[in-house]
């Protein structure tokens, strides 16, 4: 069923991608400072912008009046001159490197959601023909970005919810209220994800990580479906971090048997053993984490992309179907994909946790046949 779902999903994704590309190509009347986002190019840019992390919490804009509604977030960057902090409002919603923030000894600007430090002496960013900044370089950005806010929000929600559940057990063995909803989920992760994959004896040690990751991803995926517009699990840095956690955990908890089987596989000709060792190592160090991080990232990014594109149909199809027709189509399709996205939100959290526990299970397994 899962495979079928993925295939369906990919098909829908590709269809939308292809059709979207054609809109983008057909869009010739591109105007730079429009009142509303109504051309394919602007829509494309808007979606691209949404998929990226953002330095301010933007809810909606009135482009005609040039007003943006939302709130700015703190920017914390490590520059060549040390740590600099200021509010993102200093950039005045500029994302193209036009506004340069002077912090005394360093000049900072923001290009495509990335903070750049201008090289010494430069006062404005210059771009080459591929729109790469030539006289500025990226800085290490510890800002409380929208994604960080999302993570903190998810963390707080999780903490409050599950501490409530934990406290509920002091009153009696059967939880009440929100705990009644959360308890089956915890049992589900324990009995259907951790236990069968890791084994009865060793699963307990990894429950902290697996449960946290499962609910963290799920809540963030669901937050991504709200109009607040988080796209935390669509940030490759976030999924990479999660995957690396899994790798670190299974490498450090690998049993003697695991290392013996990985590095010097018994039962095969000696000449093949180094080859197998290389394959196994590449598998455990690169392929498995990569599959984890890309799967989550791609699914969530694709989901956001599809939903936003379908919402945009109301504009892009207006000429062919009229306002009512395009809005209706957009509504029906967006609703349909959103429902699928609710499922995908759970599915991806499940798959990530499932595969993590599967890999951990491989690493901690002890063979007794030799």
């Amino acid at each position, binding site marked *: 069923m899962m495979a079928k779902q993925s295939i369906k999903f990919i098909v829908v994704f590709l269809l939308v991608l292809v059709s979207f590309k054609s809109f983008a190509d057909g869009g010739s009347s591109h105007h730079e400072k429009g009142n509303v986002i109504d051309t394919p190019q602007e829509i494309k840019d808007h979606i691209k912008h949404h998929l*990226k*992390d953002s330095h301010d919490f933007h809810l909606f804009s009135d482009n005609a009046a040039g007003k943006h509604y939302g709130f700015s977030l703190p920017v914390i*960057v*490590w520059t060549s001159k040390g740590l600099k902090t200021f509010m993102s409002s200093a950039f005045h919603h500029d994302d193209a490197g036009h506004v340069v923030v002077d912090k005394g000894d360093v000049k900072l600007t923001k290009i495509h959601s*990335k903070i750049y430090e201008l090289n010494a002496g430069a006062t404005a960013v210059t771009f080459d023909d591929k729109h790469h900044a030539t006289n500025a370089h990226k800085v*290490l*950005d*510890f*800002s409380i*970005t929208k*994604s*960080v806010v999302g*993570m*903190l929000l998810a*963390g707080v929600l*999780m*903490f409050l919810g*599950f*501490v409530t*559940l*934990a*406290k509920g*057990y002091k009153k009696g*063995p059967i939880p009440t209220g929100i705990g009644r909803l959360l*308890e089956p989920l*915890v*049992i589900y992760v*324990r009995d259907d994800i951790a236990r069968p994959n890791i084994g009865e004896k060793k699963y*307990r040690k990894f*429950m*902290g*990580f697996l*449960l*946290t*990751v499962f609910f*963290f991803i799920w809540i963030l995926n669901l937050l991504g479906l709200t109009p607040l517009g988080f796209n935390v699990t669509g*940030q*490759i*840095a*976030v999924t*990479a*971090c*999660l995957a*690396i*956690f899994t790798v670190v955990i299974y490498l450090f908890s690998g049993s003697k048997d695991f290392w013996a089987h990985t590095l010097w596989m018994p039962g095969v000709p000696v000449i093949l053993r180094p080859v197998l060792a290389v394959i196994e190592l590449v598998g455990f160090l690169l392929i498995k984490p990569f599959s984890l991080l890309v799967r989550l990232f791609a699914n969530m990014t694709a989901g956001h992309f599809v939903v936003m594109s379908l919402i945009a149909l109301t504009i892009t199809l207006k000429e062919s179907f009229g306002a009512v027709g395009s809005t209706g189509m957009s509504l029906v399709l967006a609703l349909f994909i959103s429902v699928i996205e609710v499922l995908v939100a759970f599915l991806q959290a499940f798959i990530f946790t499932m595969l993590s526990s599967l890999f951990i299970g491989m690493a901690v397994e002890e063979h007794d046949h030799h």
Partner: protein
Amino acid sequence: MEMLLNDFSPGLFIMQAVILVILIFLMAKFAWRPILNSLSERESGIEDALKAAEKAKIDMENLQANNAKLLQEARTEREEMLKEAREMKTKLVEDAKTEANETAANMIAQAQAAIEGEKKAAIADLKAQVSNLSIDIAEKVIRTELSNKDKQVALVESMLGEATLN
């Protein structure tokens, strides 16, 4: 790929790592540990309760088997008692009958004896009365006979004659 790498933000990566470590630690300490402990406690509690229930069921079955056995025994005993009682009754009735018969026989015998006695007494009485009457009659006859002197002498003579004969 280049776009992916370009999108990768090391700062966000570090923030995420820090948040995740803190979150795992906090969740493990304040949520997962108590929750999982409570769950396993509850599960072992349920298991124990189920085992206890199973045991109670077996006990109950044993008890019922015992009860049935006791009931059976009681029934046998009752039947035996009834049988005994019936036998005793028969015996009592028999005894009573025998005794009654004996008593009746005795009474009849006594009655017969009494009747015999009475009869004898009556006969004796009758005899006495008959003899008195005879004497009276004899007296009267004799008085009439002895109203003259000759006859008296004749009688004495005859009686004396008889007496000698005896």
